[in-house]
């Protein structure tokens, strides 16, 4: 029986060879919650009546969604998280540590071949380092916390092969936006996606995270990549655990195979109010923008800040426009300081936030006014996402965002290709 990556990882974690469609109980290598979900994880865990967590080194909580706390309600949740962490002896990444999806792999909790559950929908991010990771709700996570296990439906897999060389000014964000637009918001529901091809091979691990991060935007359970030399190096640099790379068998059964050539791909933009409402940047060029946000678990990594800094260096953003930059982790923040990117941003007129989710979830640090338009490097543009249902959100790459900040309207980053 030939197997996909998801079938292999789930087989290894449940102790028998399984295939798509089966329901299995599997051991989970690592699990976590963030400040929007951990309050309910703790409540559900208490209701289960189990005294202590299954293994304290295999769970952590990250305070990133509303951090530092903007109000009394959130402060109470943060307090509850810290209290539980102290009581159970588990790790908490407190305010300023960064976004969970950067902090967790950076801290070395994820290695190739792992099965990871997070109480956050973008947990699929670690597929980029060959781990089957997926998002669940708080009660589901509490079940893992109590038992070290959960039930899984072994997913069918869609194979996506992307060949060609990306043109200058076109990035992994443009690739995944194009795919979400093409496959649709529910086109891969319940399924795993495996990404292959020259495009993936040429990308850095940081850029690959952007692609796996948004697999959930087409409904997928996970967005997996095979481990190459770059993956192994990345994992070894961050984790003490040995990577256990998992490859799909050559004639594994896929529910669908899709092939693309991205040699002529233009920068892509998702228009309000769904992520799959995607077009080339030329179709929306000139749309006036009030706020630009560069950051998040999709695009707050070092390369993303570097790209934005190259475009913004020595220049000023449009008067009246708000530019908010949020590094994805403390480590990235420090690197960006050392390399002078933070100075570039501040001189250009940006506000640089502490590492975390920033204004992405709409609870703080840049809530939009009625009628305002934002251009963001995040992964979602649902109505109300940035805190106001009467605002519009466009999504694109850090390069498109930086170019847009300079013009005050959506702009094509390829105009700056000499700087990139």
């Amino acid at each position, binding site marked *: 029986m030939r197997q996909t990556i998801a079938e292999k990882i789930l087989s290894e974690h449940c102790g028998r060879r399984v295939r798509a469609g089966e329901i299995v109980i599997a051991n989970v290598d690592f699990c976590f919650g963030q400040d929007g979900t951990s309050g309910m994880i703790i409540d559900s865990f208490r209701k289960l009546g189990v005294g202590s967590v299954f293994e304290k080194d295999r769970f952590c909580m990250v305070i990133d969604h*509303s951090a530092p706390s903007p109000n009394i309600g959130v402060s109470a949740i943060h307090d509850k998280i810290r209290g539980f962490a102290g009581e159970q002896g588990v790790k908490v990444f407190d305010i300023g540590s960064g976004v969970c999806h950067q902090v967790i792999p950076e801290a070395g909790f994820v290695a190739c071949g792992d099965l990871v559950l997070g109480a956050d*929908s973008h947990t699929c991010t670690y597929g980029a380092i060959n781990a089957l990771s997926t998002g669940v*709700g708080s009660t*589901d996570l509490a079940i893992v916390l109590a038992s070290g296990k959960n039930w899984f439906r072994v997913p069918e897999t869609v194979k996506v092969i992307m060949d060609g060389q990306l043109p200058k000014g076109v990035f992994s964000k443009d690739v995944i936006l194009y795919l979400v637009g093409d496959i649709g918001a*529910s086109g891969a529901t319940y399924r795993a996606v495996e990404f292959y091809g020259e495009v993936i091979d040429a990308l850095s691990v940081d850029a690959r995270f952007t692609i796996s991060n948004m697999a959930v935007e087409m409904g997928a359970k996970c967005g997996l990549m095979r481990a190459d030399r770059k993956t192994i190096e990345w994992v070894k640099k961050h984790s003490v655990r040995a990577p256990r790379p998992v490859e799909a068998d050559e004639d594994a059964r896929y529910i669908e195979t899709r092939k693309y050539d991205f040699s002529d791909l233009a920068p892509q933009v998702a228009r309000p109010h769904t992520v799959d409402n995607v077009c080339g940047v030329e179709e929306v060029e000139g749309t006036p923008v009030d706020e630009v946000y560069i950051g998040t678990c999709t695009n707050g990594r070092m390369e993303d800040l570097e790209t934005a800094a190259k475009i913004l260096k020595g220049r000023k953003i449009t008067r009246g426009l708000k530019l908010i930059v949020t590094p994805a982790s403390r480590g990235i923040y420090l690197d960006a300081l050392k390399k002078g990117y933070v100075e570039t941003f501040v001189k250009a007129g940006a506000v640089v936030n502490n590492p975390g989710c920033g204004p992405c979830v709409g609870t703080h640090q840049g809530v939009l006014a009625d009628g305002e338009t934002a251009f963001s490097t995040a992964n979602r543009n649902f*109505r109300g996402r940035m805190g106001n249902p009467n605002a519009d959100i466009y999504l694109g790459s850090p390069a498109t965002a930086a170019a847009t900040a300079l013009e005050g309207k959506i702009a094509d980053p390829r105009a700056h290709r000499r700087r990139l």
Partner: protein
Amino acid sequence: MANFAHRLKIKDNINTDYIISGRYKFKIQDEEELAKYIFDDIEKGFHEKIETGDFLVAGENFGCGSSREQAPVALKASGLRAVIARSYARIFYRNSFNVGLCLVECETNYIDDMDELELDLQKNIIRNISKGVNIGIKPISAIMKKFLEKGGVVGYFKEYSGFEDVL
């Protein structure tokens, strides 16, 4: 007592941000209170139409987006007997049965707003009394039914002290 179908103006891809906005999920811990804000960003006051035992009816990919469990919790607390949709997003699907909210998968084009409905999980049908038709539903798996019986996965887990005898 008669129970009715409620439809939103948006049919497909209703995300969890729409079900319960991020503005409220942090602020409100009380379930009954949270239920007053369902669909607040797309149809203010929607919860007022719902009476205990009613149904919410939608199209494709209901519950996509964020993993927030407050979404099914708020829907359940609003008094809904079940959600009826053509398909569901994966995390929402798990979360719903985990918190004891019943999800039914079937063709929903023949259910209009305020149709009177009856759900029969034994025969796997919905009776649309207003239209005089029966609609076949996808059978709910044995595990999910057990979760519903116990009011969610927590009740189940406590009763069986784990998962082992589910499968």
